[in-house]
């Protein structure tokens, strides 16, 4: 009886090890796929970034509120900090901290969206039909905001799944993917912020 229990236990342990190895292999493939997606998405943002300098050069920029720009940039930066903490918490099996940090990240993401689309757009003196430069400003911030929105939805799904207990310290690829995607959205803003708010003098 004891021998049979021991054999069953060792078979189970072996199955878990093999299954974990497969999971790691799958995760390695997933990582490569995600980074290829990010690279292709980055080219679209790079096109918008280059178009801004083609239209306005380095001497001019859209007439925007620089303080508001700093505030929304800070909000996104802090959200990245909490996203990083959430990922570390999950990698260490700390579900409670993970859920707390991911909620903070979601709230900050919504605040960023509200700051850009809800505040910056209405106070910008010109609409997208004013000139090519302003049309590009709305395209850049709009396209980025859409990515933030999809990131927030991604985080909400991950949060819900974690509440169902679908992730643990060993298996949490969706959490890692959500974190990488969220930080990518931050990296895009790292370039858009100086391009739109800092470089050049305001143009009407």
């Amino acid at each position, binding site marked *: 009886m004891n021998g049979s229990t021991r054999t069953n236990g060792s078979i189970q342990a072996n199955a878990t090890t093999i299954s974990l*190895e497969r999971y*790691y*292999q799958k*995760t*390695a493939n997933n*990582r*490569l796929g995600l*980074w290829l997606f990010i690279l292709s998405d980055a080219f679209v943002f790079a096109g918008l970034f280059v178009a801004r300098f083609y239209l306005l050069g*380095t*001497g001019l*920029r859209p007439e925007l509120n*620089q303080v508001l720009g*700093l505030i929304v*940039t*800070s909000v996104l*930066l*802090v959200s*990245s*900090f909490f*996203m*990083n*903490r959430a990922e*570390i918490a999950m*990698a*260490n099996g*700390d579900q409670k901290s993970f859920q707390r940090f991911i909620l903070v990240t979601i709230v900050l993401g919504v605040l960023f969206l509200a700051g850009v689309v809800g505040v910056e757009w209405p106070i910008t003196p010109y609409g997208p039909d004013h000139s090519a430069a302003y049309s590009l400003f709305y395209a850049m911030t709009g396209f980025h905001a859409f990515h933030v929105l999809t990131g927030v939805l991604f985080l909400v799904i991950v949060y819900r799944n974690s509440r169902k207990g679908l992730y643990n310290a060993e298996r949490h690829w969706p959490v890692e993917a959500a*974190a*990488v995607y969220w*930080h*990518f959205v*931050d*990296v895009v803003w*790292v*370039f858009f*912020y*100086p391009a739109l*708010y*800092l*470089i*050049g*003098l305001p143009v009407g």
Partner: protein
Amino acid sequence: MEEDKKKQAYRIGAVIFLLLAVLTIGEYFIGAVAPVWWAPLLGIALMKAFLIIRDYMHIGRVFATQEDHE
């Protein structure tokens, strides 16, 4: 041991955040004082992107081997 690793990971995340915050404040003041200095502003953006991609996005994991996971 695990607790030490966790604390160290949190510490690295916090240090990177502080560096990003300092760079962001720096670029804000450069933009406010000398908005035509586009090269330093883009240089700061590149530094920030490098820190995020390396330490928050963990690009190194893409090149990790099976043994690194175990």
